[in-house]
């Protein structure tokens, strides 16, 4: 009796790991990287960058094009996706794009010390332009560019290995996402906390006038920020594209969960962006998952639920980030980690 019970319990846990834990971890990492980019722009340049989703799409597009080029030349990265080799090119492209737009658009408003909302409207213009470029070059449709091995663990192998009736699947893209996100976040924090430039950026973000007085070069700070934004956006976009698929419109729609993540954590705070990303991702996945099978394992047979046991249909995942956003706005407008209020 006890063995039967514990077996069911493990099956239920594996089920949840397979459909909730692993997807939410990788989605959360992607959101966290995206939100980090938004929060950096907010911290240093003091505006909400509506063009961030499209910057992600642009970087990813560059990665895809280079990936295709590599594939046509027969270059591959063994079991890992070729896109990883193409990443530096995408980062370069996105970084250059960000700097071009900063020099031609935002710099002017910075010099005039315009109101934040002017930057936001300018970023809408930039969003349109990047969106047009991306659609013009690669088209508005779905593009798949993942290659190499697809799975780290397949459901069938897992079942054979453990003898459970539930399988656990971990895709290479999910494993990679989590691994790269952790490595990148560590590197970023090391940069922000330990290097001269990172310290200058934090000082600039905390108090611009004081930073200028102590001889920090604002142009360099802004330049480095945009390079970092291009880097984070391209990596987040590529990982998302490998995990799901690349479509310019989907990247535009990622804006909302990314903003929600940045605000929930406390906008302007890098730690907040990461925590926020996971909060949003876990809420989205747990709320839209159908728990029918889960309860089937846990409850006695005669109490099996008849419905899907789904709190919200998957199409309402935006609603989840929005509701969390609203709750945070009402209860604690500065977010979990006391972000900026301009």
């Amino acid at each position, binding site marked *: 009796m006890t063995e039967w019970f514990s077996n069911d319990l493990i099956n239920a846990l594996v089920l949840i790991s397979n459909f909730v834990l692993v997807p939410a971890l990788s989605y959360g990492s992607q959101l966290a990287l995206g939100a980090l980019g938004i929060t950096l722009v907010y911290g240093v340049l003091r505006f909400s960058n509506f063009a961030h989703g499209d910057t992600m799409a642009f970087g990813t597009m560059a990665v895809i094009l280079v990936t295709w080029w590599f594939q046509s030349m027969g270059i591959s990265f063994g079991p890992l996706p070729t896109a990883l080799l193409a990443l530096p090119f995408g980062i370069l492209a996105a970084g250059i794009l960000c700097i071009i737009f900063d020099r031609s658009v935002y710099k002017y408003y910075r010099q005039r010390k315009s109101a934040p909302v002017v930057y936001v409207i300018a970023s809408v213009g930039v969003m349109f332009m990047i969106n*047009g470029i991306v659609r013009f070059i690669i088209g508005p449709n779905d593009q798949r560019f993942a290659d190499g091995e697809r799975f780290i663990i397949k459901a069938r192998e897992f079942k054979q290995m453990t003898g459970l009736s539930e399988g656990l699947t971990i895709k290479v893209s999910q494993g990679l996402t989590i691994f790269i996100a952790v490595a990148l976040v560590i590197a970023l924090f090391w940069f922000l906390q330990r290097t001269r430039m990172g310290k200058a950026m934090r000082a600039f973000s905390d108090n611009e006038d004081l930073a200028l007085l102590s001889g920090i070069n604002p142009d360099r700070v802004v330049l480095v920020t945009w390079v970092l934004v291009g880097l984070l956006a391209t990596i987040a976009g590529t990982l998302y594209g490998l995990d799901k698929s690349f479509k310019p419109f989907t990247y*535009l729609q990622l804006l909302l969960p990314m903003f929600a993540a940045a605000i929930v954590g406390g906008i302007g705070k890098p730690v907040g962006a990461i925590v926020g990303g996971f909060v949003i991702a876990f809420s989205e996945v747990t709320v839209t998952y159908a728990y029918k099978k889960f309860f089937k394992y846990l409850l006695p047979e005669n109490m099996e639920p008849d419905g899907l046991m789904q709190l919200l249909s998957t199409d309402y995942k935006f609603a989840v980030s929005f509701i969390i956003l609203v709750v945070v706005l009402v209860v604690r407008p500065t977010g979990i980690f006391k972000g900026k209020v301009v």
Partner: protein
Amino acid sequence: MSVRNRTLFSFALMVGLLLAVAFLQSWSVTLAILNLCLISAIMALGVNIQWGYAGLFNVGIMGFAALGGVAAVLVSKAPVVEAWSAGGGGLFVSLICIVFTVALSVFAYRRLPQGRNRVLCLSLIIVVGYFVTRYFADPAIAAIEAVDAAKTGYLGGMGLPIMFSWIAGGLFAAGAAWIVGKVALGLRSDYLAIATLGISEIIIAILKNEDWLTRGVKNVSGLSRPVPYEVELQKNSWFPELVEKLNADTLSSVALADRSGALQKLVIEYSSVFVKLCYAGLFALVLIVLLVLSAKALNSPWGRMMRAIRDNEVSASAMGKDITARHLQVFVLGSAVVGIAGAMLTTLDGQFTPGTYNPLRFTFLIWVMVIVGGSGNNLGAVLGGFVIWFFWIEAEPMGLWLVDALTSGFGDSSFIRIHMMENAQHMRLFLMGLVLLLVMRFSPGGILPEVVHRRKKEE
């Protein structure tokens, strides 16, 4: 150029552009563009009320326009009696549950002392309320959606003339705006932007998925019209006679045997133009009424107060103005205007298709209209609506022509040429962004800047 001349000149140029299309393409194309120009102008007017008067940054225009579209369905479609009897009761009970839950949460929020207990209590009320509502709503919704799913599967509407939906659309949008405004106004401007972006995505998600309400992605087509149908016109006796009279010269030059055939063709062409003209008349009427009202409001003490708040919140608040309440008021008003335009758009389309709402087209394009036309100036916003919509439509043939000319050297089978011809239409997004940025940079007031009376230039 004086302000007045500048306005007259700009509008004359716009009329000229439309006429050019009429002669180069056709009258039918011109009128199709004109109708959407009028609707865009109303949307831009709504955004201008929020942004130009009060400096509120709303990026949820798509959602408010879609609510207008829902109103068109709910007002004009005949009620589906079977669906009402199948699930109406259940839905009613669940509605009462929702109202009860909300009332109870508000009561608890107000009465309980702040702290962890209040949060726990509120969460409990909401969770229990949610499940009780679902318990009644789920079977009712399933029953409604099962009623002749291929044709209806939804509750239908009230079966009233569709023109009423323009008012209803405004009311729906105003209601939604009130809720969003209550939450997000009074916080930083960026937060309002993100909150409205969110609400618009949610509204679209609801419309796509709640089949019992609007059939979701199955679309509601065949909405009734406030103007006659082409086929009816062709069957009537007066219309062909009128066409014959108007074209007496051309017809007399046609050989007698072909004359009835030629007339038939003309009648079909004229009927489509006539229907579009009717729409244009109705839309223009609404636009003029709204324009007059907005101009009156802007030049009243209320308008001056709004501008004072926009320009300096601190000093306006020191003068005793309730900033948050005024912001809420203007936010609701502007959204209502957008809702009216949304209902008109769905009326013009004759169908409600939630899948076609896209933030680039329905939110950000309207913003381009307001900024380019001139924020704070009602006529400017209207002009912006006309100009931007015109180029949004005409950029496609122009862009194709340009790409065709540029790549003609590559030869017809060249990969670059084919790719560029296929994707040329997307360049209009790029163009819109570029226009927006150029106007912001070099002419921040827009084509027709805000007119400020009796004020010295700021330092």
